[in-house]
């Protein structure tokens, strides 16, 4: 492998250094005054964001050392960094003056670094390393509160993650055996001539790992438990940020390696997409816990996003801008919905009764974000869905498009179950005491900003899509 210009990896380097720095700073800071760690982390994230924007604006790219820096990588960096920033702000309400606040930030930064690396990987070995980096900090984060539900979620998450990780490594080994290399470019040349069964086994194993990260069927069982059991900001992070990296990695793998291989890639990916969106929706239908409902809804969202990976073949224009745009839109809407939950510290849907009267801005943000997840225009997810629906139809997957539309209608049902109580004239007090008097200040800000971003991205979809 030739050398890598470290400057092209500046945002990743900043993230890594910030993680180390935060650990050191946290160790030498009294437990009561760990707020300064948060400030430093925020500054580092902003610096990484600035570095990304400069790199994207100057068109800096590279393709060496098993890692690609291209438009997709730039876009993922921006979305992941913004997502981490939002999580740090969400955590400001929950984890402020928590004795292990700096550890929280360190783990968060490392997981984000893993997600970015996943998206940029174009070598199976780099992909495996990125997978581990994106997973291990999250196991700790999910169990961070040391309570019963968090521990249970962490254990499930860890066991399934370990299994998927081993599968991913096995798959990489099989593909190495089949193609003689782990680089995507070499694999794309070698796989069409390789034994088909071997390639199929390898691909399925690699897919298992990536689907676990994305939270897609059939390795989705951890998602609702983590969404419900982990601390709310962690749940927001885990159901949003790692998905971005994993889905771009899936798309890259499908686009660069598997579309050409002697393998029915499109039907396989379409089947996974269909299963994800349908099972996620079915699971969400009768949930009464807001976070569990969001967890299932993210599974169905992964299904829609997988349509991009299924539609890589047989099209004139690349589907990549649509996928990236959908990821941005999804991040805004999902983080916004979780931010409302963080702000109110609510558990069940009924806890939200009468929210519109008490906190109209939070209620409106929640409505925008939930309708955004449905894909109601003019929110951004609508444009993303439109792009992916179109791509699916053009790729000859008309049935998948119809199924996605039917699923969208079905999903409306459970989102409305949440929206409706907001406008009840009076919230009947629930047994557990319902909501606190004042919602978290930072979380409220994040929720309103995310809702505004969701609308703004949709209206300004033209220029944004032009950048991608």
């Amino acid at each position, binding site marked *: 492998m030739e050398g890598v210009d470290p400057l092209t990896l500046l945002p990743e380097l900043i993230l890594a250094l910030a993680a180390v720095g935060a650990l050191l700073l946290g160790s030498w800071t009294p437990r009561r005054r760990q707020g300064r760690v948060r400030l430093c982390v925020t500054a580092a994230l902003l610096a990484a964001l600035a570095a990304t924007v400069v790199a994207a604006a100057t068109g800096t790219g590279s393709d060496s050392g098993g890692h690609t820096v291209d438009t997709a990588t730039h876009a993922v960096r921006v979305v992941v960094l913004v997502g981490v920033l939002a999580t740090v702000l969400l955590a400001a309400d929950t984890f402020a003056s928590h004795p292990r606040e700096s550890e929280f930030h360190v783990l968060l930064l490392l997981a984000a670094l893993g997600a970015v690396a996943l998206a940029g990987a174009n070598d199976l070995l780099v992909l495996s390393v990125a997978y581990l980096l994106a997973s291990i900090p999250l196991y700790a984060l999910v169990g961070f509160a040391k309570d019963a539900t968090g521990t249970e979620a962490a254990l499930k998450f860890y066991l399934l993650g370990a299994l998927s990780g081993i599968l991913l490594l096995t798959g990489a080994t099989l593909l190495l055996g089949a193609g003689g290399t782990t680089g995507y470019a070499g694999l794309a040349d070698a796989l069409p001539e390789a034994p088909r069964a071997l390639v199929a086994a390898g691909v399925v194993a690699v897919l298992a790992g990536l689907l676990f990260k994305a939270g897609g069927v059939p390795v989705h069982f951890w998602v609702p438990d983590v969404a419900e059991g982990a601390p709310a900001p962690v749940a927001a992070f885990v159901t949003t940020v790692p998905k971005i990296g994993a889905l771009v990695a899936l798309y890259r793998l499908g686009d660069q390696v598997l579309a050409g291989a002697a393998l029915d890639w499109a039907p396989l990916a379409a089947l996974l997409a269909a299963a994800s969106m349908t099972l996620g929706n079915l699971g969400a239908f009768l949930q009464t816990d807001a976070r569990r409902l969001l967890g299932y809804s993210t599974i169905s969202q992964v299904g829609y996003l997988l349509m991009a990976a299924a539609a890589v073949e047989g099209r004139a224009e690349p589907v990549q801008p649509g996928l990236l745009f959908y990821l941005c839109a999804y991040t805004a809407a999902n983080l916004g919905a979780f931010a409302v939950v963080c702000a109110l510290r609510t558990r069940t849907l009924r806890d939200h009764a009468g929210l519109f009267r008490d906190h109209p801005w939070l209620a409106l943000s929640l409505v925008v974000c939930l309708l955004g997840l449905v894909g109601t*225009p003019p929110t951004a997810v609508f444009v993303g869905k439109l792009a992916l629906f179109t791509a699916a139809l053009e790729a000859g997957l008309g049935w998948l*498009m*119809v199924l996605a539309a039917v699923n969208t209608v079905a999903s409306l049902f459970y989102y409305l179950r949440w929206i409706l109580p907001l*406008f009840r004239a009076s919230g009947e007090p629930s047994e557990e005491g319902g909501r606190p008097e004042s919602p978290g200040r930072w979380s409220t800000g994040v929720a309103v900003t995310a809702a505004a971003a969701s609308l703004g991205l949709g209206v300004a979809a033209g220029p944004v899509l032009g950048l991608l």
Partner: protein
Amino acid sequence: MLSVVVFLPLAAGLVLLVLPRPRDGTVARTWVAASALDLALVIGLWAYHPSASGSPGAVTGPLAYEERVLWIPSVGASYHVGVDGLSLPLMAMTAVLFLACAVHSLRQRVRTRAHAVLFLFLQTVSTGLFCALDLLLFFVFFDLSIVGMYFVIAGWGHGRPARSALQFFLYTFFGSLALLLGFIGLYVSSDPRTFDMVELAGQTPLEGREPAGGLVLLAIGVGLAVKTPTVPFHTWLPPAHTDAPAAGSAILAGVLLKMGTYGFVRIAMPILPGAWSDHAMVIVVVGVVSVLYGALVALAQTDFKRMVAYTSVNHMGYIILGLGAAGLATGAQSGAASLAITGGVTQMVSHGLLTGALFLLAGVLHDRADTYDMGSYGGLAARAPRFAALAAVAFFGSLGLPGLSGFIAEFQIFAGSLGPVPVATALALLGILITAALFLRALRRLFLGGPGPCTDRVGDLSARESAAIAPLLALAVLIGLLPRFLLDRVEPAARALAALVSG
């Protein structure tokens, strides 16, 4: 200019939203002022509508006041608005009806600000839909109208509003997704790729390409049929109407239902003329079934509002019948086809005015005595003469009495449809008989005979209520007596459309 008309109500709504704690009276007056100003602007558009000029190349006649800004260039979607003879009457009807609702709601004191903002939002959405010339823009407004109406029903309805609102949202959202699939089908088949209605109508990309043309028409047809609604997609309508507040019902029946029928003349017919002609018989049958079924079920109702809701199914059926018949007309019958389409558009306007008035009148009853049950009333003519007079005009207009707008519309539809589809037209004529019977019976139950248990709770219309309802009926009479001012606008566009789908 057109964008000002579209977004003025929304801007007024945003102003209301940022005002710190406005008084209820201020909110109500601002709402009325904004709606009145919007109506004045629409009248201006009408008066200066250059009926013979405008950009050529549009299939349904020249477009005026066009504006086009690229929105998502990579998929060929733009903010493209403009008006022609099909859209202008509906925009005018929308403005009139929203002003009537604003006046009617002057004393509405339940969450006044949110109520006003929602209606102003709905007005922008409805006006925007009727002048949208881009499929995506149309879809955006189409979907937002559902969202807005959902909150109106859920927030201000009575009975079981949450359930009805949910049913309404799910059902119509299903329709809108079907519509979206159809739009994507059109987009994918067009070359160069575009969502622009004018360009698509020029390309007619699916002409002669079966089964794609039929499938896309099916998707679009189902989407619009849910909204219209026609049998068998009408089941959301009665509960939504019964539980919606009066002004919400008026807008739902008067404006939102027209989005479905307008979609047929604006999108389905010009862009898929061949497929429309091929499958016109299905459309005619759906129309006739809607006419008869709507009328018969309305006849069986004892709930006044439910009855009016079912007559909407019946009235929308006439429009579908006329549009379907236009597709079956041969080249020699293109005059008849044009007549049927003109009748259809006139019916949209007429139904908007009359049903809007009927639902506002139903709201008056509910405000006073808390029930829509017709058996609870009786002898209202003596107690509430103004109420009885206005209701009688609306009833007779709805059943198609000459001299009122309903007659002008339905006569043209029947005259135009008789040539292409004589049997269906004869069957649909029965619908007129049934509606006449049911309206006369309702008239007798409510206004004549001895007083019912709730009669003494009903006082006559207040000045505010009269001011909201009387202008709607005055316009219906005006269209009934002097229809030329309306028909002159509609006919050129209808002729162009008829030439496309017939022959």
